[in-house]
């Protein structure tokens, strides 16, 4: 028994000394979670000016094209790796005797402009800018061009609605 007591005494001294000699440490932890949601925001600056078709300078010719480039488009987009977005446009109803075209510029790194695109069929989405990744841009010019294809009775058109959409592109 005396031996056991001596062993315990030595051990207790050892443990005690160890506690004093070695600085103790302790660790706690917290987590930080940042969720980046997908963002797909598109805006236009307003409505273009009215396109007025005027009589041709030369008898027998069709009226000249009319265009407007006073409006701009802005978009902010981020997508998961391997995916892109695109901007489509559709014209609700076509004009009589007039083909409507549009062009949207795209600053480098913010997508690829498709150039001038014709609204061939009413209420059909056409691609105007593709390959949009994680980017933001503003003041991209929208140019509308009205091309007279045939002479029709003079009319004042009611406004036609063009719908622009920033949407997922096919992978």
């Amino acid at each position: 028994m005396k031996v056991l007591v001596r062993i315990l005494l030595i051990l207790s001294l050892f443990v005690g000394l160890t506690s004093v000699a070695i600085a103790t440490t302790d660790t706690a932890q917290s987590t930080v979670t940042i969720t980046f949601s997908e963002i797909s925001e598109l805006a236009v600056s307003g409505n273009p000016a009215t396109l007025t078709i005027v009589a041709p300078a030369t008898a027998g010719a069709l009226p000249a094209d009319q265009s407007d480039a006073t409006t701009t488009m802005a978009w902010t987009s981020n997508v998961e790796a391997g995916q892109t977005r695109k901007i489509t446009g559709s014209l609700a109803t076509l004009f009589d005797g007039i083909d409507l075209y549009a062009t949207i510029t795209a600053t480098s790194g913010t997508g690829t402009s498709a150039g001038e695109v014709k609204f061939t069929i009413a209420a059909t989405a056409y691609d105007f800018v593709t390959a949009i990744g994680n980017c933001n841009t503003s003041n991209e010019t929208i140019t509308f061009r009205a091309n007279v294809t045939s002479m029709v009775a003079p009319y004042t058109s009611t406004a036609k609605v063009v719908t622009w959409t920033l949407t997922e592109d096919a992978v």
Partner: protein
Amino acid sequence: MKKTVTYKLLTILALLMFSGGLCWAISITETGNWSETVDSSDLAAGAGSDLISTYESASNAVVIDISNTAGNWALDVKKLDTTWHNNLHLYIKRTSDGSGPGTISGGATYQELTDADLSFFSGSNDRSNINIQLKLTGVTITVPPNVYNTTVYYTVYDQ
């Protein structure tokens, strides 16, 4: 009689052994985490603009208690990423002294967290309710949508 005394002695010695370890083991407890969601409402000026670049947690997003101290101590901090993006930078600062019999100093200005321990703040004796605030910078639209996670480690040690 002799046996009883021996057992008592053994009990005292055993208590001495364990108490030697328990009394001196400094302890830290932490409460709270920080979650932030970045979405279209964080655009600086709507469509066409970039995201606001800097976000801060509540000033008491994390609360730390330090106890079982044996005098002076110091606290190091680091982060270990689970999913992170190189654009993102995380900072930390202490926003309150807490309370208790001891003292506390340092850590009142933001320091960037890395995967290596950095000295955060130090003090003496027990302190509780020490408030911690976090800040995130480098947020841009070029950071792909994802859930980014990192763990902040607080290590307290005797000095």
